[in-house]
């Protein structure tokens, strides 16, 4: 009996000392959510730089090395990170192949906006499954966190209760923050926005903004002088006061428009960790709303 107890205790101790699960995510925001759910049971690396455009990450060999050792690979999905599959293909890691528990699509089951009725390059760089920038809606982030939690449980069943408890805490933190964020958003008088790229649809829907037009002619297609002039006319007609855009887009066209219309340019990060003021998901959303309110 003593031996049995010692054996169980030894097993428990080994479990306590178990090395954290190595996880690789495509984007820093996924790393942040995974760390919220996984706590000290996970060691997470993100491939994309926080200040980088998620569409144009290039598959470096060092990314493949990082993924080679991972037990889990988390991506948004919805064809946002097309480069992710290239890394999986070259990493030679069976844990993260499609259909394995270690391959997690955080967008699974999320209702997307702007799913194209016609798939043609004539419409620009369209995403066939709909707009993939879902993490900018905190309510959808709860769904993403649940998908990540399910993935963690699938690869590490003994810690199921731990992950599920952390998920509840995270959801509760989102719910509490959402009350503050919605109040902040309501206080912003100017609800009409022009954005650079079609990244802000979920954010706008959640916080009651009205995105009238994009500076890009079509997704991924930079503005032409004609389109720029049309935007200026729209801004004047509709009384738009703000252009909302990501840090990594070229400011030439927005500045041209701002100079002639007096519209304010709000340039903000779209991912966690790009600036010191937005090092986690909560501070990211707060920062964006604060900049819009300023």
């Amino acid at each position, binding site marked *: 009996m003593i031996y049995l107890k010692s054996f169980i205790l030894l097993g428990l101790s080994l479990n306590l000392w178990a090395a954290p699960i190595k996880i690789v995510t495509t984007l820093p925001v996924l790393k942040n959510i995974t760390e919220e759910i996984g706590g000290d049971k996970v060691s997470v690396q993100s491939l994309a*730089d926080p*200040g*980088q*455009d998620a569409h*144009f990450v*290039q*598959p*470096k*060999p*060092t990314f*493949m*090395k*990082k993924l*080679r050792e991972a037990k889990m690979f988390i991506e948004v999905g*919805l064809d946002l990170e*097309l*480069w992710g*599959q*290239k890394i999986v*293909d*070259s*990493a*030679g*890691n*069976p*844990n993260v*192949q*499609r*259909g394995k528990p270690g391959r997690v699509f955080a967008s699974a*089951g*999320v*209702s*997307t906006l702007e*799913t194209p009725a016609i798939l043609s*390059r004539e419409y*620009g*760089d369209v995403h*066939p*499954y*709909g707009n993939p920038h879902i993490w900018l809606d905190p309510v959808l982030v709860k769904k993403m966190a649940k998908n990540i939690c399910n993935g963690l449980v699938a690869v590490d069943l003994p810690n199921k209760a731990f992950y599920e408890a952390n998920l509840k805490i995270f959801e509760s933190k989102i719910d509490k923050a959402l009350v503050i964020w919605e109040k902040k958003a309501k206080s912003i008088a100017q609800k009409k926005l022009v954005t650079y790229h079609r990244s802000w649809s979920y954010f706008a829907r959640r916080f009651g903004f009205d995105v009238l037009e994009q500076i890009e002619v079509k997704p*991924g*297609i*930079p503005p032409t002088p004609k389109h720029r002039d049309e935007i200026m006319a729209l801004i004047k007609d509709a009384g738009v006061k703000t252009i909302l855009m990501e*840090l*990594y*887009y*070229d400011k030439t066209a927005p500045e041209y428009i701002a100079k002639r219309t007096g519209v304010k340019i709000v340039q903000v990060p779209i991912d966690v960790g790009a600036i010191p003021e937005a090092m986690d998901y909560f501070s990211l959303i707060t920062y964006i709303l604060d900049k819009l309110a300023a």
Partner: protein
Amino acid sequence: MVKAILLLGLVSLSAFGQSTDPLIDRVEQLEDKINSPQQRPNLFNPGITAFGNMLTCAGQNCGSIFQLREVELDVRGSIDPWADGVIIIAVEGHDGHFHVDVEEGYAVLKKLPILDDAPWGLTLKAGRYLQPFGRFNQIHLHDLPQINQPLVIKAFLDDHAFSRVGFSGEFFIPTPGENNSLRLNLNLINGGGLAFINVPNPKYPAGLGHLSWFWDLAAEHDLEVGLSAYVEHNPANPNPIQLYGTDINYKWRPYHLGDKKSFLLGGELFVANGFKGLNNRWPLGFFVWSQYQLNQWFYPSVRYSYAQGVKNELLQAAGVYLTYYTTEFLRLRAGYEYDIGKNQNQFLFELNFVLGSHPVEPYWVNR
């Protein structure tokens, strides 16, 4: 209709304020089910991409002024849970005549059926594929940063690109640190037929290896150094035919500017030995090139190539190029090439277009 009823239900439920009623959860689940993106109906079909490449040439030794140089059909997808397949058919045009070639056709074993985990991330490839001798030889015509393959590739490997039937195994060699990776690619292929020797038919087995060390110098600066070796036992030669190479590539790409700026500097050096009929026993060739991305659209580039001892000739060429992209799917490129050895000038204009689901390019292809 169903959606409308569900939405009506949701609205009426919401009217009573925030509720944790399981009915709301159920309605939300059903709504998610309705609105979730559907998988494409062609899910089991492979991804198909077609590339078209047209060249206009003015100057000396141009051949036809207008050339449809290549139409390439790229078909790829999963074969089963263990393997992926790639087939690339190229229809190549020259002076109004076309011929069809299987540029690549191979299967990649991404998981081994016997072992759960392949040692060192080993991936196996079998079929016909562009051989990993240096970097440029692995880049298809439509992805090249200049209009043609460098003179050195043409002089030593193949006029178009060196593609052979064989097997390859690629794996990571463990290295300390997170910011570098060392990969070795070993191939057993049908040898022969290299451009620098006159044995036309690939007949004798050859071994080819490429070792590449990639290093993240800093957040936006990358360096890759590669070593290549090709050895072929050909009974017509007293010694094994050998070709060695090294390739170096540096890339700067600032993250905060999206895809608006980049700088590439690279080069490859080839040295051959072990075949009859040449005065120079160690023919040598190299090329250096650079490309700077001015903005989202324009990419100027320069290249200089040198080869001596191949077919008892001194070959030298230099070129300047300006590339304009409307999107990644349509590229226009103007170039001027000067063949120093033959004192010939060419003015070139290239149009490249992509139809379909463009596969993700290799790392050293900038767009």
